């Protein structure tokens, strides 16, 4: 299945501005920066989480703890996936108890990944609350999950695909809809 780019929805500048807005929104709703912590879902959510934490540091002058979550071991389709799942590292090096967690992912689609991440997070402790921030919400939810901070809503058809490319992994900064 070779998909071609149907539309470029965000470029480098667009991604930067979007993340900056999300960072401001997070601060607006969480006055107590001291209890904030950002956790990104691997692979690309983890990089976005680092960028949001950097933004917050620049705006508030305070460092917030950042973590990365690999949700593979919590997937509900482990018995169905055909390719060998590769476990990547999970790095939560701060105490989650009582923290206000901002969970970050690149694309929100069915909501299944977020379900895994929630299950995994609460195995690390009992945060005060968990909010969800995503760069792209493309719809088609299969679980009762909604984002608290959205970069861009992009209506898509199910057979389409959303491609997020970031410098850290892809030598590019853009979001495309593929069809």
């Amino acid at each position, binding site marked *: 299945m070779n998909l071609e780019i149907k539309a470029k929805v965000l470029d480098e500048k667009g991604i930067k501005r979007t993340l900056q807005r999300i960072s401001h929104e997070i601060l607006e709703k969480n006055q107590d920066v001291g209890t904030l912590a950002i956790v990104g879902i691997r692979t690309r959510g983890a990089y976005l989480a680092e960028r949001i934490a950097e933004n917050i540091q620049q705006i508030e002058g305070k460092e917030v703890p950042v973590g990365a979550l690999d949700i593979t071991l919590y997937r509900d389709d482990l018995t169905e996936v055909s390719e*060998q799942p590769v476990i*990547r590292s999970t790095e939560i090096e701060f105490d989650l108890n009582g923290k206000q967690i901002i969970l970050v992912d690149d694309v929100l689609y069915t909501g299944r990944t977020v379900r895994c991440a929630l299950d995994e997070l609460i*195995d690390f*402790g009992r945060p005060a609350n968990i909010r969800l921030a995503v760069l792209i919400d493309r719809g088609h939810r299969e679980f009762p999950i909604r984002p608290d901070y959205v970069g861009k809503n992009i209506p898509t058809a199910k057979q389409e695909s959303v491609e997020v490319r970031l410098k850290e992994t892809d030598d590019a900064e853009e979001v495309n809809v593929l069809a």
Partner: protein
Amino acid sequence: MSKKNAMKWTRKHLLGIEELSVEEVNLILDQAANFKEVLSRPIPKVPALRGKTIVNLFCEASTRTRSSFELAAKRLSADTLSIAASSSSFVKGETLRDTAQNIEAMKIDMIIMRHSCSGAPWFLSKHVDAAIINAGDGSHEHPTQALLDTFTIKEKLGKIKGLNVSIIGDIAHSRVARSNIWALTKLGANVTVCGPKTLIPAQIEKMGVKVTYNIAGAIKGADVLNVLRIQMERQKKALFPSIREYTKIFGINTERLNKYAKNDIVIMHPGPINRGVELSQDVADGEYSVILEQVTNGVAVRMAVLFLLNHTKQSSGVK
């Protein structure tokens, strides 16, 4: 890390290290590091193998390996069942094959087995559909021990390639030695074996190792000493004159280490230790010893193995 160099695991069983490629060994070691992190979590358990049933079929005594496998399975949320030969139908004369096929009829997914006969896991893998993991077969192989040993070395010293590793003791009867030699030479270490002549197999050099009968020679220049257990039960065959003499000539003690060893030498032992025989008390508990870290790493390595094998079994479409 990236998807490009992600290597695929396609084996259904883990029977030995000999048959594995360098990439396969490295894949297990890389994955094990991430499973080790799971063990440090407040709730050290993940749902990855929920609904899977794993049987520990141990036809030989074991504490470490059996409990390590059992914990690894439980940390992955699999159900486990332990069968010890002494309390099973083996004593009524049931064959290994019948026992395994009967267990399998109860719908299980994997069998972890230890047996005193070399090759028993190979035999079983031909007759059952479950994935077989060799937890030690006779004096042949003990693959997960070699994996956890190499994992521990890599964790301590950052690499395997180019390191000098000396394996000391009863090489002839040791499955740990054989699996370690396969793993270490595949990964590019320089391996030396050392022990009394009667306990070094003829032509062991063909496995790519050096042989020395001189303990000083084995310690000098070594980055790692893997000290094997002197198997007292085999002493009946009188392969060396006495335990006392063995300790005197081949025992690892502080005095010998001070005289010959590098400053940052790593001392390993697969357990159980005969304190005061192959290892002196102070070395076993000393600053160079990583013996308990080996045990911790064993659980992580076995989790990685169970996870990888479980996936092949599913995607191969068999039952």
